[in-house]
């Protein structure tokens, strides 16, 4: 039986009914420039640590099995899925969540672009979409190819990037409201404004 107490206190939202045995590790994770020393059950994912231990509920739990992208965060500069990342494996890593983007009363350019382009409806996938899109723009500026690039030997160029390429680069983030055309528009707006992101 799942113990209510253990479900809430020790092992938040864990995929288990086995709460009798708990093996903790201590990790220091830097989240949005603030270091946190956490004592976590080895089974806890980065997603659950962010939401349930640090109260950063902007990172969303969609499928919790690596299929939807709602839990996307940036770890050491790369977009990753926090639902398939063990918190125990994040020692010393730098995590950026949606809460870490806006600063000094200013939205991040990608947040502003999603608002301007109406790139969401219900908003549940939006934090993951925005973090993913920020990295997609960085990757384009770095010139790296996607599967939609005609020839991987080419250096891609923000000015000539097709909508098909933007969709390919954003395919790891599902939107059940199907705001996709407006998400593509938001990504393009940031890409072509060449706003540093």
């Amino acid at each position, binding site marked *: 039986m799942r113990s209510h107490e253990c479900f809430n206190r020790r092992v938040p939202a*864990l*995929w*288990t009914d*086995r709460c009798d*045995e*708990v*093996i903790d*590790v201590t990790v220091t994770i830097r989240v949005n420039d603030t270091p946190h020393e956490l004592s976590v*059950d*080895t*089974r806890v*994912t980065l997603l659950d640590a962010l939401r349930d231990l640090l109260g950063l509920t902007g990172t969303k739990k969609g499928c*919790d*099995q*690596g299929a939807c*992208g709602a839990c*996307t965060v940036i770890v050491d500069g*790369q*977009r*990753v*899925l926090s639902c*398939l*990342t*063990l918190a*125990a*494996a994040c*020692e010393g890593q730098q995590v950026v969540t949606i809460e870490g983007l806006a600063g000094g009363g200013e939205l991040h350019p990608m947040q502003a672009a999603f608002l301007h382009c109406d790139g969401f409806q219900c908003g549940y996938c939006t934090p993951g979409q925005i973090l*993913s899109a920020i*990295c*997609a723009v960085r*990757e384009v500026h*770095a010139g*790296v*190819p*996607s*599967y*939609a*690039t005609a*020839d*991987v*030997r080419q250096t891609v160029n923000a000015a000539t990037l097709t909508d098909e390429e933007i*969709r*390919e*680069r954003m*395919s*790891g*983030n599902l939107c059940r409201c199907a705001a996709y055309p407006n998400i593509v528009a938001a990504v393009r707006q940031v890409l072509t404004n060449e706003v540093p992101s």
Partner: protein
Amino acid sequence: MIAFTFERFSRAADAANVAGARPRATFLGGGTTLVDLMKVDVLTPDTVVDVRHLGLSSIEVSDHAIAVGAAVTNSQLAWHPVVRERFPVLSAAILSGASTQIRNMATVAGNILQRTRCPYFRDVHASCNRRLPGSGCDALEGFNRGHAVLGISDQCIATHPSDMCVALAVLDAEVHTQRPDGTTRSIPFGDVHLAPGDTPQVEVALEHGELITHIIIPSLPGAQRSHYLKVRDRASYEFALASAAVVLDLEGENIRAARLGLGGIATTPWRASEAERFLAGRTASDSTFREAAEIALAGAVGRAHNHFKIELAKRTIVRAFAAARDTNV
């Protein structure tokens, strides 16, 4: 998920030694397969050994080969300028798989060792000889649209899901390992994955605790004339129904040598050697490619829902070779 201890080492020998000594230990790379399958109790390790901090995260380039550390991510490998220039088929194959987020996490060794996506394998309430030897195979008479038509047995028809491995197969990569007893060895890529036969639970030719340290990809003159074509149910973020990795060495319109790997239709990353031999010395025409495709799929056996893959794979092969032929190099 059952409780497990989490170990992190800085030397490959220590990681292999500790994992080898614990029968239920497993290595953690990017976790994109492992954590997923642990959540649904398909994998139940009591020890998880993090192998991303063993100094195995670099790509070293020489004239005759590149050496890729086991913990290099799929993205790092696909985006590396020398990989894109020398082995475009490898870069494209990797980029066709999963999503950027997953490729940023997944390691090269983890991709090689990833488990099948057969839905019966990942459902502990289903019968699966690969997960529980002797329990039967629900895929044989069940919903088997995504399953393999090559390399199958009456014990298992699960598809090997990797795109990257199909390219590594045609590039004659070598897999280097560290064993728990401290010795090292190298294994030709084609010998790493095992067809299910009567022991579908034995998926790779590695002993327990044997750690992949790096892979060597030898330079292949002519590898620039290559192509990876993946056919699937949606345009992106989906596994292959059929895929082909091809390399063509041409002299005018004649084929000096051809290489052909197949994904999405076989129980292992598939090298179609007989079709390759057929192509050598022939004209690079669509009809020649079709004949080669017939040879490549000659041994294929379809079941209730996946029979379409046999024709689909043949057409995929023809299109991939035609694209490679028409590439400007």
